[in-house]
């Protein structure tokens, strides 16, 4: 099995605070992998390190076998890395369709064109529209994102990431705070992602995690506690103690 994403000794410190501690992690091509851990475990920091929003204090990041540690975010995206955000990070003053068109256009390499009208490349608009159809929000295509309820904004969030046609997709709590109707759409979309896309989902919803993931990594205080199949994770007393136990009590 080839490795789509790998981190070797990845670390990030803010002064004395260690938020990522020597993380060795592998995401196989086409994997359905979940990253779990209690609040403050460093899950989103890990995503930010991998995508290049944060630079690591030490360690390396390999994307499809290429060292991308020193590359800027946009260069990693061009190499197939897509992500969604834990908190909606959208172009709120633009229409739903344009939100997705921006991503599709950048992926197609037409985002910097200066002398062609936006929308003139029909294929870009059609592709963005097809993604909205897939997310079930095609009726909202012309509405401004800020006018949409939170759950639908969450779907736009995912549609933008899919517009980049990534080979590695990092989903940061995609279903957080989403009503059940949209939640089902999100689960269906994730389940229907092509097998070629390696997906890492960061999620608190254990039901979703155990339904979706073939492998699970548990992160605690910036370090990997353990990695295994859902059955192994569920059976491990340390995991129950630090994460599942906490949920039962909390």
């Amino acid at each position, binding site marked *: 099995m080839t490795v789509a994403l790998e981190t070797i000794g990845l670390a990030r410190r803010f002064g004395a605070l260690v938020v990522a501690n020597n993380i060795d992690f592998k995401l196989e091509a086409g994997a359905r992998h979940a990253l779990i851990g209690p609040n403050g475990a460093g899950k989103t920091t890990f995503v930010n390190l991998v995508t290049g929003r944060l630079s690591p204090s030490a360690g390396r990041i390999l994307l499809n076998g290429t060292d991308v540690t020193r590359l800027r975010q946009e260069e990693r995206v061009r190499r197939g890395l897509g992500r969604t955000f834990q908190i909606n*990070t959208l*172009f709120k003053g633009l229409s739903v369709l344009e939100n997705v*068109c921006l991503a599709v256009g*950048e992926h197609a390499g037409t985002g910097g064109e*200066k002398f062609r009208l936006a929308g003139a490349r*029909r294929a870009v608009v059609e592709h963005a*529209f097809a993604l909205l159809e897939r997310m079930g929000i095609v009726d909202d295509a012309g509405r401004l994102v800020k006018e949409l309820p939170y759950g639908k904004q969450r779907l736009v969030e995912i549609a933008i990431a899919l517009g980049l046609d990534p080979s590695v997709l990092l989903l940061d709590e995609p279903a957080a705070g989403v009503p059940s109707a949209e939640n089902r759409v999100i689960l269906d979309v994730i389940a229907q992602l092509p097998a070629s896309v390696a997906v890492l989902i960061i999620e608190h919803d254990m039901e979703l995690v155990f339904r979706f993931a073939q492998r699970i990594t548990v992160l605690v205080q910036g370090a990997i506690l353990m990695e295994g199949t859902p059955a192994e994770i569920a059976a491990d007393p340390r995991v129950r103690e630090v994460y599942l136990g906490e949920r039962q009590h909390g």
Partner: protein
Amino acid sequence: MTGRSQVDQFIRAHRLRPVELLPWGVAVLAYFGFADYLPLGSQILIMILFAMSLDLVLGYAGIVTLGHAAFFGVGAYAAGIYAVHVSGEPLSGLLVGGLAAAIVGLVSGAVILRTTGLTLLMLTLAVTSLLSAAANDAGFITGGNDGLQGVAINPILDAFSFDMFGRTAYLYCLAVLFVSWLFVRRLVHSPFGRSLVGIRENVVRMHAIGAPVRRRLLTVYTISAGLAGIAGALLTQTTQFVGLTVLSFERSGAIVIMLVLGGAGRLYGAFVGATLYMIAQDQLAEIDPIFWDFWIGLLLVLIVLFARGGILGLADRVLLLIRRRR
């Protein structure tokens, strides 16, 4: 609305609408209707071009600046020095003014666009102050405090001389503004222009979809500087003089006010704001020569408080209300 028609509507959204030709009709009518005010008309057209250049960075890309006069001033001086020492040919003078300002925009932008917010705002001010001090010190070439004298401009295309009534100057400014508008309109409605709006709306997401954000910002900053330089060059050529005020903080501030009055990020806000400001300044200065800027300030306060999005933003909201009532 069906899916297909939504796609079609989106594709058509950026095409030229007939109403966009309205300003040009007004400008042509003004030429015939206000023959005594053509020098003021030229000034308005120049300020529209300057405000339009500012709109690219401030309104579309969200780059906060209080130093846009730097580029206007560089363009004005470059065109003036070119006319005095090289040639009085106006079109090449415009090009020189635009190029000089674009180079200053590229170099200063490469440094200051690494910052954001208040730091960026201060740096834009600092660049203008530096250039203003340099223009004052380099009196041997800029004329320093006395201004650059002896600017003589040849007839345009060797055929149209600048006349004392300002007719040629008006039409010349109008033609330059029209060509610049064609360029800017295409730019803001292009994928590049929309990506600038994306950067303004959410720079974090633009990075995450793989857009080369810094390069886009530097590109638009350079283009905007070049256009501001052309506006400055126009002022030099039509007034045949350059003074230190072209680089003043007041000019930077006034152009921001004009744009905010009209509505930033709307392309035509520059047209409305600059026209209103210049006419109000002209009229109020007659009525109240000492406190005219108080009235401009009051108007700005009212617009900012009650009409976010400027006059065009207000007009949009009124039109929306009328449509909903029907």
